[in-house]
């Protein structure tokens, strides 16, 4: 089996690191640059940084902060948060990020995906999709950090994002987020078979075996938040990442 990426997702509010449950009740974790230094020593595959306040505050992730990340990160990283133009994406690439992550702004202006993709290649554009089940169990798309539901067909949106030049889909389950009870396997399975581009599963991972289930369901990479910043049943704050041998064993199975 080809090696899959295991990606910590770090959420930012006002340059601090936070983690919540179901996209709510955020608790402060610590300083993101400190976290990067620890993740460097752990040879982490990749990092994702999402500024979760940008879409609501109509701002963009801080460029100097992205530069600081680029100075520290010895691994690839992508950033998201209010990126609403090719120009802003350009600045973020120049600052040192590998990829930009679009969510709300891509839904509002799908053309942005193709603009960035045409200039920087599809591998540099990740479209992030926040999904929540409604009371009928139907998967619905959300924007503004889970704050607003979009009336659209989820699969059509994923296909459109791919057609427009997205290189990856970051698929977040709001229902599973922060629960550490495992990914929404049905969601992963449903979305991954609709697209050729890699799907990164996100939301719910609590154990390395969850990665295996997501990959078996069609995910090309696994992302997690809580699992990499909390430790133990009382959720003490501890930046952590599985040992290389543990992951290698997982992918051998």
């Amino acid at each position, binding site marked *: 089996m080809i090696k899959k990426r295991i990606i910590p997702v770090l959420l930012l509010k006002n340059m601090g690191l936070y983690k919540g449950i179901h996209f709510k009740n955020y608790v402060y974790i610590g300083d993101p640059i400190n976290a990067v230094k620890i993740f460097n020593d752990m040879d982490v595959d990749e990092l994702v940084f999402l500024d979760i306040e940008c879409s609501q505050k109509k701002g963009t992730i801080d460029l100097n902060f992205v530069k600081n990340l680029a100075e520290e990160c010895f691994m690839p990283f992508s950033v998201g948060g209010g990126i609403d133009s090719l120009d802003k994406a350009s600045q973020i690439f120049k600052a040192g990020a590998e990829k930009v992550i679009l969510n709300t702004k891509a839904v509002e202006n799908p053309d942005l995906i193709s603009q960035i993709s045409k200039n*920087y290649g599809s*591998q540099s554009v990740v479209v992030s999709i926040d999904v929540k089940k409604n009371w009928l169990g139907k998967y619905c798309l959300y924007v503004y950090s889970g704050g607003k539901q979009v009336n659209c067909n989820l699969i059509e949106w994923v296909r459109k994002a791919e057609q427009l030049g997205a*290189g990856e889909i970051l698929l977040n389950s709001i229902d599973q987020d922060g629960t550490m009870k495992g990914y929404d396997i049905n969601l992963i399975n449903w979305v991954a078979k609709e697209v050729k581009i890699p799907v990164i599963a996100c939301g719910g991972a609590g154990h390395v075996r969850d990665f295996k289930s997501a990959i078996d369901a069609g995910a090309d990479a696994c992302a997690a938040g809580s699992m990499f910043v909390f430790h133990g049943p009382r959720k003490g704050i501890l930046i952590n990442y599985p040992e290389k041998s543990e992951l290698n064993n997982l992918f051998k199975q």
Partner: protein
Amino acid sequence: MNKNIVIIDYGLGNIESIKYKLELFGYYVSLSNSAEIILKADLLILPGVGHFAKGMENLKNSGLIETLNTAVLELKKPIIGICLGMQLMTSFSEEGNVHGLNWVEAITQKFNFSDNTLKIPNVGWRSINIMKESEYFENIMDTQEFYFTHSYYINCYNKEDILAQTIYGHPFTSVFQKNNILGVQFHPEKSHKSGFRVLLNFVEKNL
């Protein structure tokens, strides 16, 4: 005297990250698209994240093609191309169907394989198989993993130019060298300590 490393700034790519990291090791690094500065450089880095045709267009529009040809082919300045930077060194790319710098007998092709479990772009940590010993692989293990992110790969016609191959659907050239020109498909600046080692080896052996 301080040696001068110049990262070619043609408007594409995450160029700052390479600069920061070389500076950590005490090198003097500048970003430039000026012919004067490039022709005075001791070592060049051609970075790149992006679309091939756009990359060539930007090089052309900044009048850099002639400068680079002089610096690399005539003055024989050591140059490392990273990711798209490596691909631009080939003669032609299927990404936009345009000609490249034509410094190495190779073309840039789109991944095309029957294995539908493999996604395109190829994103992730892949190992390299060293095909030819090189001082640039000092302290690098065969099968060492590096970070790749690309939808196109280079196909080298001259087997002697291939330093390492990587398999994704099929083998492709992940590192080539032709005289003073080195190309790496992976991101050495984003591949932990071993990746950075390759970049440092190139710098140390040439300065």
